[in-house]
């Protein structure tokens, strides 16, 4: 019975390594585990459980499989357009700006944020905390090296979001890869933080957590939204992914919609 085996596997991962996938969306986790199983050549999930407990390399690979998130620069250009129009004016009123990018994965959206802040002349008084629980993704993000083949798509996204500069000015090319400018990396603090298990680490003016909560079940989403609420200043702004909402959480009444379509919310005073 795969559901029971999955439950036991996740319990093993949690108890041994402290990574908690037990309240993730079941259909999503099942799919990831079955793919992992197929790649591993193991016969059943109980075998995976046994290997996870005894083989650290295997466990590490499984953790990667369960946590890789696909991301893009300026993903959902409409969102970034709205950010420029509706959120930047609010941020301009603060002497120092703190932004928390929760679940930053390999960093594409954090760099996008840095670009916008630089273009708005706000970057020097901004700190972006970019966090994720996936150490490998975080290390990659810190390096700021991306594949050259993606840049065309990212340039389109950037332009659709209202960007007027030459996008290639933000990185240097090196054969198959590009490396983001040091001036963009300067005020980004990369840190390991697990939304499921860790607590408030700073009070910030803006939180972006886009397309991370979709992987969590309702209870866990509620818990994380509470964490975000506790991490935001009064009047601070929360940005979710284009199909995410506060609707099924306890925090729904605590925010006003700044942009309903783009899922930008302002914390009530």
């Amino acid at each position, binding site marked *: 019975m795969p559901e029971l085996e999955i439950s036991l596997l996740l319990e093993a991962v949690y108890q041994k390594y402290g990574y908690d996938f037990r309240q993730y*969306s*079941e*259909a*999503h986790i*099942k*799919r990831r585990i079955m793919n992992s199983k197929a790649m591993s050549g193991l016969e059943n999930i109980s075998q995976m459980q046994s290997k996870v407990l005894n083989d650290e390399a295997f466990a590490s690979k499984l953790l990667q499989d369960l946590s890789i*998130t*696909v*991301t893009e620069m300026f993903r959902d*250009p409409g969102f970034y357009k709205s950010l420029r129009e509706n959120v930047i004016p609010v941020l301009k009123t603060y002497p120092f700006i703190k932004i928390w990018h929760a679940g930053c994965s390999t960093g594409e959206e954090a760099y996008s944020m840095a670009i916008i802040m630089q273009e708005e002349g706000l970057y020097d008084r901004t700190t972006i905390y970019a966090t994720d629980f996936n150490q490998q993704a975080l290390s990659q993000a810190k390096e700021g090296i991306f594949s050259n083949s993606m840049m065309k798509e990212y340039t389109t996204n950037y332009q*659709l979001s209202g960007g007027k500069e030459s996008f290639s000015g933000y990185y240097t090319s090196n054969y198959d890869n590009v490396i983001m400018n040091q001036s963009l990396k300067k005020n980004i603090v990369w840190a390991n933080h697990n939304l499921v298990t860790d607590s408030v680490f700073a009070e910030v003016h803006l939180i972006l957590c886009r*397309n991370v909560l*979709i*992987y969590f079940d*309702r209870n866990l*989403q509620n818990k994380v939204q509470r964490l975000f609420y506790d991490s935001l200043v009064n009047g601070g702004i929360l940005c979710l992914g*284009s*199909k*995410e*909402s506060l*609707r*099924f959480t306890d925090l729904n009444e605590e925010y006003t919609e700044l942009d309903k379509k783009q899922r930008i919310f302002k914390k009530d005073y």
Partner: protein
Amino acid sequence: MKIMFSLLPENFSTPIIIVQHISAHSDNQWIKLLNDKSNLPIKETDEKEKIERGNVYIAPPNYHLLIEKDKTFSLTIDERVNYARPSIDVMFESAAEAYKNKLIGVILTGSNNDGTKGMKRIQECGGLTIVQDPATAESSYMPASVIAAMQVDYVLPLNGIIALLIKITQLQFHK
């Protein structure tokens, strides 16, 4: 699809879930247009939304659509499957496991083989499989691919599919 929704009656209560290959940047104007011609309410799925009778749900662009055992929707942004996101295979596979033999899988016109694996899974889990007759489809590749890979329960032109769906749901209703 416009034809399909103008022909399905208002009282068609079985929920319909659709995955269509659309551009990641598409807005949902086309859904508004579809709604104008339709007797059933059509909307893009919301995350964690519960599947209700009488509704038609469409997967949003650039996400994969999954169905949970508790009959709610989940979205993911995994890698494209069969170059598609949303992928038909991904949705069909999770629907097959959530609904088992209470599921009808329908494949219409399409230009790649996304959906073939999904239809197989639906059949494995006891569901019913219906494919649009490739001869009547605008693009025959997708339906033909399913027919080549398995023993489909019904191969019909669009009108036939609609008539069959109405018949099946009416039978259910009278039970």
